[in-house]
C-alpha cells in the first residue's frame, strides 16, 4: 500500500489528516491487499482533496472501485452539512445520474443461446455511440416534463408500467429539479438524445443469473437461477454534460466569492444554501431526472424487442431496480446518534440503503434495497442488497462497478477489438459496437476483477451478495 496510509481493518485504510494540507477529516477507503496493488497515488490525493472541503462530515470515503478521476476520485462518497457544507459538480461528474438498472425476463438461458439476431435487433433499435440521435420527436415541452418528472413522465407517456417507478431510487425522479437553472444550451443538447445509450462505458447487456448467494433475497427481488435478465447502463447524455460545464463555471466564481480554498479547480463549489449552490442543485436534479427518463425509454424499447422476438408479454419483464452512480442528494442519516439531513455526493458509487429505510420499496423493508453492480464486458455483474453497516459507515453507499486499472491509451495499444470480440464469442458472448476501438477501450482486462471488488464490499458488510449474472451478449456505444 502507498506510503502515509494506515491500515485500520482487514479491507479498510485511513488517509490521515495532513496527508494534504487543509484536510478537515480523515479519508477512508475500502480495498483488499491485492486490489491495493492497482491503487494510484492520484486517486488517494483526490480522496484527501475532498476532505479539505468545508462542512464535510465524518470522512472523505472511497469504495473498492476507487480510481483516479477528476475532482473526487471515482468511487468517492462524501456527505456535507446542509448549513455549513458545500455542493460541488466535481463530486457528481459530467455524466449526472449515470446509472444502471436490471430487468428480468421469463426467458431461460437456452432460449437466447446463440441468438445473434437479438443482439442485432437491440443494436438496430437502441441508438448507440458517437453522434447517435433519437428516433423520437421530443418537443421542448416534453423535454421539460422529462427534466421535472423523470421516469414518472416516461411511464405516464407509455414507456413503462407504474411498478417500474417503485423500483427506482427516489421513485425515478428528484423533486428538487429546477429547470430555470438549466441553460438553453443544455436543453438544446437534450432534445435529440432522449432514449439514446451514449458511448464509453455505457452498454445494454443480456445476462443470465449464474449463481445465487442468498436464496431468500434473490426470491424477494424476483431473481431465479438460469433466468435471463437485461442490464442497462447510461446517463443524462449531452444535457447532463452541459449542466456540469455551465455550473462549474458559475461555481468557480462562487468559490472565490465565498472565500473557499480548494486544492483542485474541478472541486469548484459553493455553500449548499447559497443561490449558486441551489442553482446547481436544481439543474443537477433536472439532469438526473432526464437520465431516469432516458433509461426508462431504453427499457421500453428493450421490452418491445424481447416481447416481439420471444412472444412474451411486456409486463413479464419487471424491473429489479434502478440505481444512480453520479449524483448529489439530500438524504437523512444518523450522525452521533442524531438523525439529520445531509447532502451526500456519490461519484461512481451506489446507494445501498439497508433494512428499515423509508426510501426503499415497502416489500423490501426487511431486506434492504437491491444494489446493481455491473461488471466489465465479458465478466460477471452482481446483485447485492443494502445493509445497516452501510448506513452506519458509508452514508448508505457501496461500490458502483469494477473500476478501471488500464488506461484507454494502453488498452488500444495492447488489445485488438477484433480479437476481444472473437474471444468473447468463443465463450458464447456476442458483442456489437460501432467500432473496434470501443471494444478495446472497455475490454475485460482494463478493469479490476469485478468479483474481487464485490467480495470486498460483501466482507466489509456495506452490501451483501445476492446473485451473480454472466453476460450472454450486448451492445456498446
Amino acid at each position, binding site marked *: 500500500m502507498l506510503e502515509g496510509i494506515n491500515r485500520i481493518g482487514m479491507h479498510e485504510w485511513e488517509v490521515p489528516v495532513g496527508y494534504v494540507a487543509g484536510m478537515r477529516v480523515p479519508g477512508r477507503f475500502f480495498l483488499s491487499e491485492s486490489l491495493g496493488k492497482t491503487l494510484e497515488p492520484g486517486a488517494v490525493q483526490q480522496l484527501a482533496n475532498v476532505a479539505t472541503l468545508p462542512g464535510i462530515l465524518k470522512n472523505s470515503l472511497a469504495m473498492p472501485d476507487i480510481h483516479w478521476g477528476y475532482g473526487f476520485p471515482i468511487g468517492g462518497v462524501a456527505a456535507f452539512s446542509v448549513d455549513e457544507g458545500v455542493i460541488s459538480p466535481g463530486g457528481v461528474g459530467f455524466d449526472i445520474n449515470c446509472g444502471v438498472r436490471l430487468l428480468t425476463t421469463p426467458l431461460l438461458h437456452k432460449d437466447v443461446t446463440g441468438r445473434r439476431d437479438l443482439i442485432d435487433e437491440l443494436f438496430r433499435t437502441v441508438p448507440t455511440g458517437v453522434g447517435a440521435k433519437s428516433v423520437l420527436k421530443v418537443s421542448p415541452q416534453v423535454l421539460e416534463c422529462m427534466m421535472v418528472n423523470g421516469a414518472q413522465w416516461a411511464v405516464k407517456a407509455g414507456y413503462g408500467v407504474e411498478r417500474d417507478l417503485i423500483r427506482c431510487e427516489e421513485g425515478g425522479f428528484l423533486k428538487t429539479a429546477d429547470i430555470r437553472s438549466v441553460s438553453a444550451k443544455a436543453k438544446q443538447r437534450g432534445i435529440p438524445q432522449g432514449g439514446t445509450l451514449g458511448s464509453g462505458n455505457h452498454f445494454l447487456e443480456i445476462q443470465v443469473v449464474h449463481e445465487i448467494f442468498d436464496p431468500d433475497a434473490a426470491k424477494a427481488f424476483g431473481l431465479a437461477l438460469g433466468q435471463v435478465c437485461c442490464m442497462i447502463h447510461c446517463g443524462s447524455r449531452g444535457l447532463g454534460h452541459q449542466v456540469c460545464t455551465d455550473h462549474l*463555471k458559475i461555481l468557480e466564481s462562487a468559490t472565490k466569492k465565498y472565500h473557499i480554498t480548494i486544492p483542485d*479547480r474541478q472541486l469548484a463549489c459553493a455553500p449548499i444554501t447559497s443561490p449558486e449552490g441551489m442553482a446547481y442543485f436544481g439543474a443537477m436534479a433536472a439532469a438526473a431526472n432526464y437520465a431516469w427518463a432516458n433509461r426508462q425509454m431504453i427499457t421500453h424499447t428493450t421490452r418491445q424487442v424481447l416481447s416481439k422476438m420471444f412472444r412474451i408479454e411486456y409486463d413479464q419483464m419487471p424491473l429489479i431496480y434502478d440505481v444512480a452512480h453520479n449524483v448529489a442528494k439530500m438524504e437523512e442519516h444518523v450522525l452521533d446518534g442524531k438523525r439529520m439531513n445531509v447532502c451526500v455526493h456519490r461519484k461512481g458509487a451506489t446507494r445501498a440503503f439497508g433494512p428499515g429505510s423509508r426510501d426503499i420499496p415497502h416489500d423490501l423493508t426487511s431486506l434492504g434495497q437491491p444494489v446493481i453492480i455491473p461488471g466489465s464486458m465479458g465478466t460477471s455483474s452482481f446483485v447485492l442488497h443494502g445493509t445497516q453497516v452501510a448506513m452506519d459507515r458509508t452514508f448508505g453507499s457501496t461500490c458502483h462497478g469494477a473500476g478501471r486499472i488500464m488506461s484507454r491509451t494502453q488498452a488500444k495499444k495492447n488489445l485488438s477489438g477484433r480479437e476481444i470480440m472473437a474471444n468473447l464469442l468463443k465463450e458464447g458472448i456476442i458483442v456489437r459496437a460501432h467500432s473496434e476501438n470501443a471494444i478495446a477501450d472497455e475490454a475485460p482486462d482494463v478493469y479490476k476483477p469485478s468479483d474481487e471488488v464485490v467480495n470486498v464490499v460483501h466482507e466489509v458488510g456495506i452490501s451483501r451478495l445476492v446473485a451473480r449474472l454472466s453476460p450472454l451478449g450486448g451492445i456498446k456505444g
Partner: protein
Amino acid sequence: MSFEEISHTADIKIRAHAPTLEALFSETFKALMQVIYGTNRAGGILREIRIESSDNESLLADFLSEVLFVSEVESLVFSDACIRIDGLCLTAELWGEPFDPVRHSGGSEVKGISYSGLAITSEANGYMLDIIFDV
C-alpha cells in the same frame, strides 16, 4: 507542434506542445476532435466561436466546451481551426464537415473538459499543457 495521449486510467489525458498559445489551443482542439471522431475528418463548413475568460486555462476549457456544444448540436465534425487570442479574448474559425456515421463513429464521446491538472506552462520553445477529457 504536437499532441500525444498520456496514460490516464479513467479518461483521456492529452499533452500538447506548441510555439505559440494559439497553436497550443489549435493542437488541443485537434486532439479533442480526434478522440471523438477519429482521424478521417475534412473541412468545407465554417463556424466562428468567440470566448472571453478569466485566465488562459479557463479560456481553453471554455473554448473546447463550446466546440463540444457546436459539434454536437449541429452534427459537425471539425478538422482545422484558425485561432486568434488577444489577451483573454479568443476568436476561432473552425472548419469542418457534417457528421458521417461511417467515418466518424470510431471514437469516444467526450463528456466534458476537466480542470483537474489543467496547466498551461511556458517552455524553451513555446508552451505546453496537460488536459483531461472526460469520456
